């Protein structure tokens, strides 16, 4: 206790209520795509510029085909919204995305935005109800563009993205920029956990007429609560099973018969309990559980709760007016605090779910700690590999070819190290796939560096092993989409490319040997046709570039290496075009003769 919401979400308290006000006003001003307002902060006289977006209660702006309007988003402006392992791209509600795209053109051009950027003012994107998703997507859009971090505030917003969406946000370290206010029973933040249905339309229709004709009270629909919350509850229970480590394989079988909503909460949630207290939660799994469990039916009858679930969607302004600035704010991260849970009115079963959500986060941190020890072992093995490589260089053969021959004890030991390392990285890969490591694991500098070192040093040995056993005859070339190349290397390469904001596939220097080997095989098969010529030139260009930026070691240029032998065998018409390589080989040979350390 003792903190205000502003402290917990890193934004001045004075901003929140005016932003909510603007958000509600913008929502009900369909003639303007967004409203802008500058808010002066009293104590330091800085200004915050709030953009709030208009809303729509038309069913077509909420749902669409396929079910849940599922749309993959990770392209162009949203390239970060993807999983860096096999999890696929983030899914968002396509109807929300469409509405965002209608707005973004004018928003980018807004002079208030330019001005705010120039004067280094904090920008806040705010949205109420269906304006929320637009605020969320706009914030992401500018985060991707690396403009000074904007903030996002939503009030009673529906869910926008799936699990990967939230994972990507946390991986990028953006999660804290998003704050969502949710009333205890408000149906709208829960509505996307249930497939679109006649009940959805009833609810939207109700709000539409309510917002359109402000003074007349339309008749509230009834009977929707059980359907919408039933489906939402099914989602929450499914996630709880996973959090609780459910080992019953029926879970997945049953799930394949039910179409569950893909959407999950992300960012910081502030639950308004209705009695003046605010509860702040960041753990996304805990948010989902609270979202469902605090709106469960208790003593009061269904009709009453149902009515409340509609009324509370319009109660944000009055609720926030009462509790902002007051210090009755509790953060749930660090474990469920009993007193707060009573404010939210949670059941013992809900308590178990929250404990499981908390334990899941703890386990991920523990796994990371364990991995720190583990990564030392990786370092040790890599050091052995590096020595092996150095020794092989002295014999003028290079470790690639030495390994391919497997004549010496060292080659064998390197093979054992290779297998040892493969085991460790494969285990990391599996844990990432199961979300058993912190979300930002793949963004950590030391992990990317270690992975890249591993990939550059050891993947050539996997390639050597592959071509030594002529495995291409069984499986096709080492590098083909989804082919025999071990996935661990694909992932590790992707981490680097993502971090450097490069195209996928641009950092494939560890595949140099595979290109050379495959080219050798294909030349025998096809002769020097046009396509082969182009590939030869590509290999040469790559070689020069990679040697240049030191991502590829120059031991490939050793006189007895597969590469040099292959290159020398190329027909003479090639040589004039690539005397640069001749020169590189010459330099290498000189260095070796002089015994200079490479």
């Amino acid at each position, binding site marked *: 206790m003792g903190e205000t919401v502003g402290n917990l979400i890193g934004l001045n308290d004075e901003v929140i209520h005016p932003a909510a006000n603007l958000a509600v006003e913008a929502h009900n001003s369909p003639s303007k795509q967004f409203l802008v307002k500058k808010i002066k902060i009293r104590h330091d006289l800085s200004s915050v510029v709030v953009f709030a977006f208009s809303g729509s209660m038309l069913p077509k702006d909420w749902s669409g085909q396929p079910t849940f309007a599922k749309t993959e988003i990770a392209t162009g402006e949203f390239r970060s919204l993807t999983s860096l392992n096999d999890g696929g791209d983030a899914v968002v509600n396509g109807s929300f995305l469409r509405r965002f795209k209608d707005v973004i053109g004018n928003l980018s051009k807004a002079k208030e935005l330019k001005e705010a950027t120039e004067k280094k003012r904090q920008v806040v994107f705010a949205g109420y109800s269906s304006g929320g998703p637009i605020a969320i997507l706009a914030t992401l859009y500018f985060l991707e563009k690396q403009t000074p971090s904007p903030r996002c505030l939503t009030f009673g917003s529906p869910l926008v993205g799936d699990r990967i969406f939230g994972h990507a946000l946390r991986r990028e370290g953006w999660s804290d920029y998003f704050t969502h206010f949710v009333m205890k029973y408000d149906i709208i933040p829960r509505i996307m956990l249930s497939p679109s249905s006649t009940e959805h339309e009833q609810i939207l229709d109700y709000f539409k007429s309510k917002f359109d004709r402000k003074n007349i009270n339309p008749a509230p629909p009834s009977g929707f609560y059980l359907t919408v919350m039933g489906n939402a509850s099914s989602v929450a229970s499914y996630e709880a099973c996973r959090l609780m480590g*459910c080992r019953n394989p029926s879970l997945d079988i049953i799930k394949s018969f039910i179409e569950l909503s893909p959407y999950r909460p992300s960012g910081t949630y502030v639950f308004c309990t209705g009695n003046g207290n605010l509860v702040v939660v960041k753990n996304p799994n805990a948010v989902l559980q609270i979202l469902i469990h605090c709106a469960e039916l208790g003593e009061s009858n269904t009709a009453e709760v149902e009515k409340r679930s509609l009324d509370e969607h319009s109660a944000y302004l009055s609720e926030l007016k009462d509790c902002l600035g007051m210090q009755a704010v509790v953060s749930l991260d660090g474990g469920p605090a009993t007193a707060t849970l009573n404010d939210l009115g949670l059941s013992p079963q809900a308590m*178990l779910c929250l404990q499981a959500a908390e334990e899941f986060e703890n386990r991920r941190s523990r796994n990371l700690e364990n991995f720190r020890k583990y990564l030392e072992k990786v370092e040790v093995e890599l050091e052995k590999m590096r020595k092996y490589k150095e020794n092989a260089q002295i014999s003028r053969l290079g470790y690639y070819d030495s390994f391919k021959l497997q004549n010496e004890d060292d080659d064998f030991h390197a093979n054992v190290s290779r297998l040892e390392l493969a085991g460790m990285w494969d285990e990391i890969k599996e844990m990432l796939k199961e979300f058993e490591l912190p979300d930002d694991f793949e963004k950590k500098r030391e992990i990317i560096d270690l992975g890249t070192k591993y990939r550059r040093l050891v993947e050539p040995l996997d390639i050597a092993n592959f071509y030594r056993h002529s495995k291409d005859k069984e499986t096709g070339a080492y590098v083909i989409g989804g082919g025999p190349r071990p996935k661990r290397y694909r992932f590790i390469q992707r981490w680097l490319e993502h971090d450097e904001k490069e195209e996928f596939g641009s950092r494939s220097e560890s595949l140099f040997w595979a290109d050379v080997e495959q080219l050798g095989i294909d030349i025998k098969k096809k002769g020097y046709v046009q396509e082969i010529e182009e590939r030869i030139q590509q290999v040469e260009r790559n070689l020069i570039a990679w040697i240049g930026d030191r991502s590829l070691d120059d031991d490939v240029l050793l006189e007895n290496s597969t590469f040099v032998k292959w290159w020398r065998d190329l027909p003479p018409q090639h040589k004039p075009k690539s005397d640069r390589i001749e020169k590189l080989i010459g330099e290498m040979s000189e260095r070796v003769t002089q015994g200079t350390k490479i």
Partner: protein
Amino acid sequence: MVYVRGRIKRGRRMNQDPLFSSAGELANFVVASNLIDYDLAKNFEFQRCQTAFPCSVQPMVYHPTPNRTIVVFIPSPDCTQYPLPEGGDLVPSPEFKFLCTKECPSVSINRAALTLFLSLHDHLSGLKAQLTEREGQLIITGHSLGGSVASLFTLYLLDSMDKKRKCRPICITFGSPLIGNFGLQHSQWNSFFLHLVSNKDPVPGLFLPSSHSQTTVYKPFGTYLFCSELGCACFDNPDLILKLLAVISSEVAGGLLQVVDYGEILRNLKNKAIWKGPQLAGERFTEPFSAGIIMKLETIGFDQTKLLQHNIDIRRMEAEARSLTKKTKASDIKELNDIKKYMALLEWYKKKSKDAKKGYYDCFKSGEFRRDIAVGEFMGHLNAYWEDMVAEAQWKPQTEGASFRTGWLFSGTTYRRMVEPLDIAAFYRDGGTDYINNGRSQHYKLLQQWYEEDAKPPSRDQLDSRKEKVSALLTEDSCFWAYVEEAILSCESLKNANSSPEQRESSWDNLVMFGEYVMEQIENYAVSPEIFLEESSFMKWWGEYEDYIDTNRNFYSSRLVNFTKRSSYKQYGRRAI
């Protein structure tokens, strides 16, 4: 690390992390979704249309959406009210022989369920053919005895679908009695069954003895969703399920005629799914697993007193759950990579031994180097891993076991050919005799048997390619060295002045047979040329044998004698003889 007869116990660390029971959440997940009310509606819709046939069950098929097929087994009203006039006796059933496992070598099925199933057999095999070809979701369901037949039909279907499964089946029963003596604990099939049981329904536990002292041969399989007016919980532990069913049955006994309305129960549960219950959250739970289970058992009508009274032990369940949590996909992958590593280490050992002109069999047998001892450890890990894999296959129903093992039989065979010679070496080094009958581990026998069931006889082409590769091959018959050892023993027996004439005769016969066997292996390029290394046991045997023939049977000739005396073996493995 203890090395006992080449096996290292695969230890599982006790995991002390807090543990949770998902009994309640899994049940809530099912009832809050619309999966079961849907089938159930159909179940009873059809049931109402049924006229009062004598006890029978009828299948109905329909397609609510293009992607979904539902098969409902509808029992006649007679059947629901007096589910099993014949009572609960079990009869052996050759039709379901495919469910045999190590645990349950002969399958028996409840007579009533089986009779009904068999009476529909022709119809069902047509239906099976039709369904196996369909893609999409398949729900098989039934109430009471209808559910029993639905379960049998699902098993029947799973058996033929296992190899190329196009559609996903799930079998959902409502208040169905237990059907047989087999369990599916170790089978993937277990996950395809969901049984709903009301705590007011005596039928599911009808055949279970009411007193604890009596045991039953019936075994439940799949997940049971127990429900009461207050809520529901899912369990898949067979012992617990048996106990709960028995208690429910004994409590409602006498009320047999009252038909439980599962439709009403589910409607109520759907409301309960989003109901907080009377209590609010108190303190954090220090033992979330037992807290969760106790809470859920109470919901379905089993309070603490009742648990105590019926000897239901939550602690043991927790211990069992703990021992299961250790295995994850990630640890599986790690283990697999370790196995590859140990194999690589053994390959290197083999290469080193070859360079020492002795062969890895004899190096290990003499155990003179440090590395020979290390090898014992690698073997231990490999043996433990493969014994577990073989055991896992044996716990599965036959057809499933077969498809499970095709994935790894190739590496299992490489393992057997690489490692069994070392076990043989250790066996004879320690003074054992007759390895095949006295020393061979069951898992080697099975690995070999499975390999032979799958293997095709070599064609001419293959023989040529083997000839090419023979130097890199592992000796195909993993028992080769056991025969060599026996041949050495036979030689000794022949030379031993104390041997009786009968012993001599049998030893000689053995040697003649061995000679034939070796030659056959050589002609098929099935033995590694390493057997001809100067200091190998095989060459040692040859020395003894040649010596014996030269002194005692000068005119004896066999293909092997000619082959070896002409030193043809020196060419073996050098591409061509």
